[in-house]
């Protein structure tokens, strides 16, 4: 199996009385709480963490997209991916953002992702989320009733823009473009692998299955609910006659590793508590605008409905409850290894997204956890699912064909900096 080291990039200084003073972490949390100088340090620390994961041999590094909140500092995942494209060389780059319905025209996304693929030597995984209601409807003003329709049109346009070799006209309902002719084009043909993050709507599963995309389950609602959701996914795949290839599925899991189980609780609890009780402090009045969910999904009752979000997100739980409920996998390398193996096999996921920075966790603690995972856990996970072929992985240029950032300066330096030739 493969693992990606995924960052949410939360803001680390939400006040202690945050839950009492603000109704939610998203949409209308005043930006007066944000300190740009602290932000400067935070971005650079967070990018350093991702670069460290590349150095330790994680298969991919990942970023995502959220707007107007204290939970994720990445309104533009492409900017983060661009920084990573130049500072990493081995890991693939997973961009689980670009809520494609938000961009006008959507060819902007086709352009930027193609740029990332070209700069990184074909290491890009293109995520196409619909986006949360908070991001898409409340922050970006998209109509919840037409959002999915607009998403599908944006998807079709981007894919066509990556496949066509001649300019074409696009007369869509949402985008009208006389000349679509995207430069540059991605290295990966016909286009980078596409992963679609979601909770558990049947529509998303079918969308992925029909087009051969990876379904990435992103939730913070614990193992029991995850098992139910992914059982539903595999049942649906069977019904659609798709092979049960574990690599078609990614599961996101928050993980902390320390030297012992006891040390893990002591070291990580404040930061885990910060994540579940501040970063996930959502105002339920803005989680389910009318029309965002299809009636089938509401009826199926497997996605969060208005009012019950706090139930499933692990808020107000103790360390013990979070660990036993599988909201986090935490402990010594041996404990984490065992739990990860169980998780991968029982959920049948070929890709694991690791949330290894959690809440307010500082640099050293995070890197220690990353190091322990890379050296003591990861080698044991790799053989799982080795009998299956991964069709959802970038076809990057071979490592020796990839450019080394700065290498061209070095190659010409002595000649470029030679003394001037004075005229005789």
């Amino acid at each position, binding site marked *: 199996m493969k693992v990606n080291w995924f960052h949410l990039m939360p803001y680390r200084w939400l006040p202690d009385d945050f839950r009492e003073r603000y109704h939610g972490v998203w949409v209308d949390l005043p930006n007066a709480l944000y300190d740009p100088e602290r932000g400067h340090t935070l971005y650079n620390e967070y990018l350093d963490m991702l670069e460290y994961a590349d150095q330790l041999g994680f298969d991919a590094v990942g970023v995502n997209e959220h707007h107007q909140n204290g939970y994720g500092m990445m309104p533009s995942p492409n900017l983060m991916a661009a920084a990573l494209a130049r500072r990493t060389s081995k890991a693939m780059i997973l961009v689980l953002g670009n809520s494609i319905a938000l961009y006008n025209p959507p060819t902007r996304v086709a352009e930027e992702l193609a740029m990332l693929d070209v700069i990184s030597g074909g290491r890009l995984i293109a995520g196409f989320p619909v986006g949360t209601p908070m991001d898409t409807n409340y922050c970006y*003003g998209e109509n919840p009733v037409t959002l999915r329709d607009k998403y599908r049109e944006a998807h079709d346009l981007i894919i066509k823009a990556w496949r066509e070799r001649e300019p074409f006209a696009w007369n869509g309902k949402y985008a009208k473009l006389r000349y679509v002719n995207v430069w540059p084009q991605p290295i990966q043909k016909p286009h980078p692998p596409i992963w679609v993050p979601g909770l558990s709507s049947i529509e998303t599963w079918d969308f992925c299955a029909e087009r051969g995309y990876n379904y990435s389950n992103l939730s913070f609602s614990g193992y029991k609910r995850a098992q139910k959701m992914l059982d539903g996914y595999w049942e649906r795949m069977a019904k659609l006659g798709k092979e049960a290839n574990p690599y078609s599925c990614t599961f996101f899991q928050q993980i902390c590793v320390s030297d012992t189980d006891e040390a893990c609780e002591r070291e990580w609890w404040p930061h885990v508590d910060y994540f579940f009780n501040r970063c996930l402090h959502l105002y339920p*009045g803005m989680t389910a*605008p*009318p*029309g965002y969910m299809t*009636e089938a999904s509401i009826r199926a009752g497997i996605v969060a409905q*208005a*009012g019950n979000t706090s139930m499933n997100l692990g808020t107000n739980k103790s360390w013990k409850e979070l660990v036993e409920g599988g909201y986090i996998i935490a402990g010594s390398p041996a404990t984490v290894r065992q739990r990860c193996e169980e998780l991968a096999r029982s959920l049948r996921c070929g890709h694991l997204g690791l949330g290894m920075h959690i809440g307010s966790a500082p640099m050293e603690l995070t890197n220690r956890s990353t190091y322990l995972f890379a050296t003591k856990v990861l080698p044991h996970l790799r053989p799982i699912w080795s009998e299956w072929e991964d069709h959802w992985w970038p076809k990057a240029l071979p490592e020796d064909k990839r450019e080394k950032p700065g290498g061209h300066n070095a190659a010409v330096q002595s000649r470029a900096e030679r003394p001037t030739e004075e005229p005789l």
Partner: protein
Amino acid sequence: MTTPQSRTLNLGDGRPVIEVLEAGEGAPLLFLHGAGGIVAWEGMLPLLSSKYHVYAPLAPGFGASTGLECLEDQFDLFMHGFDVIEALGLERPYVIGESFGGWMAAEMAALRPKEIGRLALLAPVGLWRDEAPVVDIFGMLPGELIPYLFHDQSCFAAQRMMMLTMLFNDKDDRTQEQVEILLTMSRGFRTVAKFLFPVPENGLERRLWRIEAPTLIVWGEQDRLVSPIYADIFREKIVNAEVIRVPETGHLIGLESPAPLAEALLRWGQGQ
């Protein structure tokens, strides 16, 4: 109290199928409901049906009405309104619109001024001033809406609405019947969101001068959802308009002060 008859209006292949509630005899009166639909035949509608033949069509997504997917944008919605008038065979009816329905009625009267006989707008949305933003009904929990809808939250209608919104709790122990009620409510809200999310303003103000029908504008003095300052803008921009302010009343005038409202509407209908 008169009990309304419900009937189905088929507007043709590929067009919405509409449920219409009807009661009373007399000149035609078309009532366009607000975002809550017509949960029960109550408030001022029975009072109006004592003098008028009241027609209350439900917008697609409300009640048994279907076909929201046939209406792509606001223009489709307004033309749909005229389809309903034509299918009901109404000639220059007296049109009363409440909130969302008031916006729709005003837009229709501006679009085809000759086809609306008289007009009454009950706290309509559709205008915008930064100093008095219309409350975001899509960005809060249903129960939290109630203080914005009623002046007196202890009144019967407010209490009953509160009971309904209790269904949006965080427990998964709803009965099938309650699930259906929730789905019905969310379907109606979906319709309103399709046309009014995220800001309920799309240029009505620059079209108001086109309205020819004598227009009564009614506002609850304590309306916290759509500020009463909008009443003055409607009156200034519509050629032949008057304003009535109902004291001790919030946004849902027809539920909170049905008698004075019905009296004013009946008088307006008779050209007084």
